């Protein structure tokens, strides 16, 4: 069953995808994700796990490597109390599910979860509670519905995948 990784406020893109590795391949960058605050993170994530964060998640750089490494490590959903604009937009573009927490959450590090992205709901199986989140709106929602901005643009250009 998927588990949750919980982070605090203002987690920046240098922590998510450190600058010193950005000129290398994603497979190399991802092994350094979160190393400044949680060095075992890349080894512990399994496919389908989720990330829960506080406010202003993904602040800093425009580097798309930030959502990409999370996705490549296996994170399937990122929810936070708030996001920096570039991280949010990049996540939708690359097809990483993302949402803003409504109200509060009691999800703690390692809690087992199940979730429904379309329904905006995470069930905390360890505690028997529910956390709600709102999905992207407007143009971002249209892009998400196509599976990211690459398929969206291919469709716009009259080419399909």
């Amino acid at each position: 069953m998927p588990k949750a990784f919980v982070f605090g406020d203002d987690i920046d893109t240098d922590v998510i995808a450190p600058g010193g590795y950005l000129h290398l391949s994603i497979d190399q960058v991802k092994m350094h994700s979160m190393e400044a605050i949680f060095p075992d993170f890349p080894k512990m994530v399994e496919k389908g796990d989720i990330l829960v964060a506080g406010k202003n998640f993904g602040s800093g750089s425009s580097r798309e490597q930030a959502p990409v490494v999370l996705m490549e490590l296996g994170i399937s959903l990122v929810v936070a109390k708030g996001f920096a604009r570039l991280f949010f937009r990049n996540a939708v573009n690359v097809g990483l599910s993302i949402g803003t927490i409504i109200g509060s959450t009691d999800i703690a590090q390692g809690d087992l979860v199940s979730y429904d992205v379309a329904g905006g709901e995470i069930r905390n199986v360890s505690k028997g509670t529910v956390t709600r989140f709102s999905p992207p709106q407007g143009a971002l929602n249209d892009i998400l519905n196509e599976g990211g901005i690459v398929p969206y643009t291919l469709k716009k250009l009259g080419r399909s995948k």
Partner: protein
Amino acid sequence: MGKTSIEKLFSRLAGHGVKAGDFIWAAPDLVYVHDVLGPMMLSSYKKLGNPKINYTGKVIFVYDHIFPPKDSASANNIRNMLGFASGNNIESIPMGEGIEHTLLIERGAIEPGMFVVGSDSHTVTAGANGAFGAGLGSTDLACLLASGTTWFMVPETMVINMTGNLPRFSTGKDVILNIISKIGVDGANYMSMEFHPSSDTRLQLDDRLAIANMTVEAGAKTCILPPDRRTDAYDSIIWDEDAVYRSSLDLNMSEIRPSVAVPYSPGNVKDVRDVAGTKVDQVYLGNCSNGTFSDLQQAAEVFRKNPVHEGVTAIIVPATRKIYARALDAGLIKTFIDAGCTVSPPTCGACAGLHMGVLARDEVCISNTNRNFRGRMGDPGSMVYLANSYVAAAAAVEGKIVDPTEVF
């Protein structure tokens, strides 16, 4: 109902009147891309099937982040971008000319009234020259080139009313650090920051570069400050008197003191007096916010009479080749070298922990750059303090942080 500057700008791009909250698809006037995030844009472009470029504005590639290349991976990144540029009629700025945000304003590529996007979050620096700039991700940029447009939500605006003038030893850096400390690192999230200096407030371009550059550290999408030279394009985006703002902030410049952002957030701002005595191992001067000629002059004022403290590494990086040449003509480079500084060619260097001055574990650096996140300039256990060039240079000669108004 009147419009803010960004509403006017986006109305021009959309071809009809828009207001905060509207979504538009539009083509920016200029797109620029650098050597660290560019390669990812090329791989996204490949996923789109390498179509003909449909975007009709100007595209510029700049090789500044890891230049000169530090290893074969960074060298190959530049090679690949050069190849794409020449095959697609994209202008490549000759390598070594400087750091993109400062450089493109210096070269006249970013003019007042323009709307520019870049692969880098500090594209907001365009605001220093009366233009709007916004960062975009690599895949967004690839899709913009392929399809011709990209989308924006017209942001709400925070207005900053500035009165008075900065005291000696305070600079644009202190202005923006003070703003971030007041509103928080997400205080302007998704917003445009519109600066309204009073008629007697003097802000030269180099101060405006520092201010505009770090608006993104408060989460801003974009920003604008009045340029030195007005153009028709700029006149067309001047805010209306009855524009509607989300919030406002009043700033009396004469009260702004030299400030320091302590690890690990640009929002952890303290008066320099409160961190005086903090020992430093490295001083790093220069990046897209504060690698200007004025910054070099300020540092030279300090180094002219005082050598670098024993055991401290002082690295100075002029932001562009032109600034370097001016500093050479003015004797500043000689001053730095005589004082024991290391002078680097224009590059992003250690600002983002890339090369040329990366920090070791537990090392403390004071820098006039824009980010002091954990691990930003190297080892996750290193620490970066952000300050203006006087404060950083003064720390280099004293070996610890000092208040320049007391020591010099």
